[in-house]
């Protein structure tokens, strides 16, 4: 009996942990938003009827999309160079991307406080160079949050894409060149289509990561640039409105899962290697 089910027994502790402490609590959070006496969708109606909250959701989407687009572009071009670099240089470039990635979110966001602050490095530099007559407020703007988020996610994008781009055989690129394609044409018509599945994986990681982030928007955006994560924290821990916080949590879960499912579909369809 034990022998026939040994696979189950071995997987049981980990499965139980996930079911008891992740699936059930999260289901509880989602469920709590539908049990209101005011009607099943009352918390959502109240969320979307508030102009402020709609603005927060919209801002979060804007920031996440901008972060994804910029880090996708920077990450892809950089990863292409890294993947074609000579061996020794390549390992140095990989270390230089891994190091920031392993450094915590708080530390990396904090660095941008020193750079973008009113008496920060950038303002001092601009004043010293005579570009600006006096320091101006760069912190607590949508731009400051996006810059820090791009900083946060570009290494992840580079590392995701280096692996993908390395797998594109040099022969293919040489074949394209020997058939008369320019470097640009080869890049657009050979490298890019083969990298699309990797680009999608990277984009999903960055979008979902920035959409649900807390520390970076909190440090660099503050109350002026409230996003879903910081709004949820405020509702739960400052206003003690758990239904409202649960509603925000549910919206985050739904959007995250929708994006992941949609993009895996798209990735499968676009994969030129698939038959």
């Amino acid at each position: 009996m034990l022998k026939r089910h040994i696979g189950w027994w071995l997987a049981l502790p980990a499965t139980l942990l996930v079911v008891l402490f992740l699936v059930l609590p999260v289901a509880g959070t989602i469920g709590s938003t539908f049990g209101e006496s005011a009607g099943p969708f009352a918390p959502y109606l109240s969320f979307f009827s508030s102009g402020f909250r709609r603005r927060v959701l919209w801002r979060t989407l804007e920031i996440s999309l901008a972060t994804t687009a910029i880090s996708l572009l920077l990450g892809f071009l950089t990863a292409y160079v890294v993947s074609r670099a000579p061996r020794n240089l390549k390992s140095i470039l990989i270390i230089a991307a891994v190091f920031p990635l392993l450094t915590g979110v708080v530390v990396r966001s904090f660095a941008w406080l020193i750079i973008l602050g009113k008496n920060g490095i950038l303002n001092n530099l601009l004043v010293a160079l005579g570009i600006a007559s006096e320091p101006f407020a760069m912190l607590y703007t949508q731009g400051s949050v996006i810059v820090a988020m791009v900083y946060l996610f570009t290494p992840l994008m580079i590392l995701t894409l280096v692996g993908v781009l390395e797998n594109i055989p040099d022969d293919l690129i040489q074949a394209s060149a020997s058939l008369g394609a320019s470097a640009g044409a080869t890049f657009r018509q050979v490298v890019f289509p083969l990298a699309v599945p990797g680009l999608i994986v990277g984009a999903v990681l960055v979008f979902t990561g920035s959409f649900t982030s807390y520390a970076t928007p909190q440090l660099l955006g503050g109350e002026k640039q409230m996003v879903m994560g910081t709004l949820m924290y405020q509702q739960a821990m400052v206003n003690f409105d758990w239904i409202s916080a649960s509603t925000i949590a549910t919206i985050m879960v739904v959007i995250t899962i929708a994006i992941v499912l949609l993009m895996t579909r798209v990735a499968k369809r676009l994969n030129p290697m698939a038959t």
Partner: protein
Amino acid sequence: MATRIPLPLILLTIAVYIFLVGPLIIILGAAVSDTTYLTFPPQGFTLHWFQRIFEIGAFRRTIVTSLELACLATALALVIGIPAAYALNRYRIQLPTWLSTVFVLPILVPEIVLGFSLLKSVAVGAALPIFPTLLIGHTLLVLPYAVRVISASLASFDFSIEEAAISLGSPPAKTFFTIVLPNVRSGVIAAFILAFITSINDVSTSLFLTGPGVSTLPIQILAHVEQFFDPVIASVSVLLMLLTVAVMAIVERTLGLTFLTK
């Protein structure tokens, strides 16, 4: 090497790397500045701010909590994650396909939602103290690393070696520890490191699970930044960066760094 890379692309790559490494150098400079405010380039040189970290009780306590939490959560995730990964590979036919999906859930559910849900149903609902709740949260957070990374190693392991050992009379449990585990050593090390680093740097899950007296280092840093803007934060950040360097040295020694792009 055979492909020529256009100059603008090389310049862009250099710019991206300056963008990636620059801010970390700025933190390093700000941490040794002999001023009471954060500044770069540093004015003077002092290690006073490193000493100051340990004079602040909240930092001393949260450093200990964070290290305990990272060690325990990683160990726990490996202890339950390795058998799960083994079962998913060795007994694939016995187990339903949805079971491997279960271990993707902690990645799919936003961390901040996990933290809030644990607060609601475990810390408040089941009245569990803060530290055990944090431990549960962190174990869940790092479990996917244990299961998926080790699964990937086991996928290329030839289970007929294990069967050979068993048919030659080696007991199954002993076979697992002497034959299977050493063969997936690199996966276990990678899982350990990724899990440890993830736990020690976590903000979103811990955010809701800190209470009076119990907090983690990243949460304490966040709280400190909002009140004081002094070089202590930079020096704590440098400490965390040193930890990263140590971890990368271990990876380099045992696996080689190219491992991280896979």
